[in-house]
């Protein structure tokens, strides 16, 4: 099993209990009310927030464990993320954003060209993020995650800002990719259609709102 | 750099190898000593002479804190006395190098018609003095007190040169500084002599250090000899100093 998470997060009045396990190669779809803790959950998996208690395991390696104090830093977790609303680095051009943290060789690879083509970014490569439209930024953010070698892929509302056609294209790309992706995917979306279409059947979760939410699920 | 200032034990011969001489000089004498330094350098090319020009009191602090020193020249005996009482200088080594006198500095042509110390008390005359902490300020106060002249200076400048500059720039109508300041290259200022029965004579003591930093005792003596010899006399008198 590839992602096992059993932990609680508390921040001021807000708290969430997460209990999930997803096998490699499977796609977990999460949907839930605004403010229920979806982004927070992804941040814990990515290593941007520590669990308040409990632990997270990736490929059977403990990456966060409150009792023993173990904590694997974000850059060593092998997690790629499409952040909610983008999360591009504002001071770098799009092409440097796409290869950020990966080294020079990637930019010259055919994989790079393929992804740039697939997300229609060719003409935008030299621009800074603030010189793009909302949808263009979102496409760049998706491309960055697709280009990143990873064991876990987190997508936080990946089709926001996309036009109808791009949404279709991206959904198709996701499905194609997830079919051959060997790691674990967690997809957050408010679009039930998208979850139905992309996530594995058994893997839809609804996170409910309130002081404490429980998300027990396992996708084998 | 660090090695060159640590006291490497070198032979006390001025002929053999490099040696250096650290000379601390009151800032008001910097022009005179730079000239003498050049002359010394041409006579003793293998001795590197290093001057340190600062206010006498700063020099005292620096020497007390361990500044490498061979010869000191102060603008007053009070500061030299501090070095003596601290054991940095032997009382017997102190000599009087030059003398100076106070003068009233006024603008060229003396527009305020100042001819005596009494004129300085006129309400329309703005006077600047040196600060009490400076020799020229102490001497001026001493003189004014003796003459029972009560004057409120517009400012207590931190050096005689600053008094000169105040007068030159027209900020002050008159100032009390040294006779030598009146002889500095300045087109806007002239000096009004103060009668010698009223005037204070100041002196500039020179001494070698009790424990010179330089291993080269000959160089120390040679430098003092140059300063106190004809070359020194000429440079000092050219600058307006009188000799003891």
């Amino acid at each position, binding site marked *: 099993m590839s992602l096992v998470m059993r932990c609680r997060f508390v921040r001021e009045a807000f708290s969430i209990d997460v209990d999930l396990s997803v096998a490699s190669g499977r796609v977990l779809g999460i949907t839930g009310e605004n403010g229920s803790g979806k982004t927070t959950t992804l941040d814990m998996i990515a*290593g*941007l927030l*520590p669990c308040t208690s409990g632990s997270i395991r990736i490929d059977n390696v403990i990456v*966060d464990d*409150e009792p023993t*104090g*173990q*904590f694997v*830093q*974000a850059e060593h977790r092998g997690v790629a993320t499409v952040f909610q609303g983008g999360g591009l680095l504002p001071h770098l051009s799009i092409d440097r954003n796409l290869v950020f943290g990966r080294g020079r060789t990637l930019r010259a690879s055919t994989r790079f060209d393929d992804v740039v083509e697939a997300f229609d970014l060719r003409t935008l490569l030299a621009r800074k993020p*603030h010189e793009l439209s909302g949808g263009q930024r979102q496409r760049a953010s998706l491309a960055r995650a697709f280009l990143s070698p990873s064991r876990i892929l987190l997508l936080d509302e990946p089709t926001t800002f996309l036009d109808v056609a791009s949404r279709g294209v991206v959904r198709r790309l996701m499905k194609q990719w997830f079919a051959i992706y060997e790691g674990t995917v967690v997809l957050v979306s408010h679009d039930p259609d998208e979850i139905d279409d992309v996530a594995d059947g058994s893997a839809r979760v609804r996170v409910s709102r309130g002081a404490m939410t429980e998300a027990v699920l396992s996708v084998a | 750099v660090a090695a060159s200032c640590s006291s490497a034990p070198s032979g006390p011969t001025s002929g053999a190898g490099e040696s250096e001489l650290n000379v601390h000089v009151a800032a008001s004498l910097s022009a005179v000593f730079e000239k003498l330094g050049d002359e010394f350098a041409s006579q003793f090319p293998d001795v590197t002479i290093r001057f340190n020009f600062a*206010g*006498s*009191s*700063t020099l*005292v*602090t620096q020497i007390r804190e361990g500044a490498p020193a061979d010869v000191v020249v102060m603008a007053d005996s009070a*500061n030299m006395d*501090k070095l003596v009482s601290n054991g940095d200088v032997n009382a017997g080594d102190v000599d009087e190098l030059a003398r100076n006198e106070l003068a009233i500095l006024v603008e060229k042509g003396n527009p305020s018609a100042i001819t005596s110390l009494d004129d300085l008390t006129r309400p329309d005359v*703005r006077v*600047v003095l040196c*600060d*009490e*902490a*400076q020799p020229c300020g102490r001497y001026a106060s001493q003189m004014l007190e003796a003459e029972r002249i009560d004057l409120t*200076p*517009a*400012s*207590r*400048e*931190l050096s005689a040169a*600053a008094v000169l*500059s*105040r007068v030159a*720039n*027209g*900020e002050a109508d008159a100032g009390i500084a040294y006779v030598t300041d009146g002889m500095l290259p300045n087109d806007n200022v002239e000096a009004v002599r103060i009668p010698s029965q009223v005037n204070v004579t100041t002196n500039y003591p020179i001494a070698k250090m009790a424990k010179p930093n330089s291993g080269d005792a000959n160089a120390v003596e040679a430098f003092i000899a140059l300063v106190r010899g004809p070359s020194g006399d000429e440079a000092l008198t050219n600058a307006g100093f009188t000799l003891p």
Partner: protein
Amino acid sequence: MTRRLSHPRGLALIGLPAAALVILPIAAVVWRTPWSNFWSAISNETARNALTLSLRTSVIATLLALIFGTPLAWFLANSNLRGRSIVRSLVVLPMVLPPVVGGVALLFAFGRRGLVGGLLDDWFGIRLAFTETATVMAEFFVAAPFFIVVMEAAFEQVDRRVMGAARAFGAGPWRTFLTVTIPLVRPSLIAATVLTWARALGEFGATIAFAGNTPGRTQTVPLAVYSELESGNDSALALSMLMVVISVVVLVALRSRWFGALRRGGE
């Protein structure tokens, strides 16, 4: 191993030499200060006069830098007039001028024989030298460029879209400037203010050359300290220490109020 996003390891350690080089001399001066006669050194009238004068003039100079420097910095960051880069270079010059020369420059401009000082004297009978105004001007001349340079950089970093959003919701340019731009640059504004005040408080060269050294009128603490030092007087150290203590108190008070508010404010 701490359970949170880590910091660059050892980065803080690199800072240690800097901290040491700055802190050791402070420790040394504390060690050498004659604390036994601390009270007598700071309680005499000269010291008290110098202290109040220093505080008053440095605060005024800083306020002037705030009031006049902020608009100038904003102009430099935002205008695309031709003259901008010239103004910028000129404004920065006092920083590299040796302060004494700065004072001399002020004399040449505002002294009795100066560029405009002569007119001031002839027309209005105003003579600036040897006045408290001159002290403030000298401190401003030397310190304000620091303020302007920091604030220009800060204004350049403000997100224009946020300002646009404020405009779109009915705030005029002035209101946007005061309620959006300024709060967004607040940490830099505080840093610039602290910097400017500190520079003004420690100013020596320009003050002595332009304003003179009149106890009770233009003798600020640095001038008094210099004078004491020159008289070989230990009370120079006492006076400096007092100034240091006062500055620390002021800075800590400011920080806990302003920076506290800021931290709550977040990015």
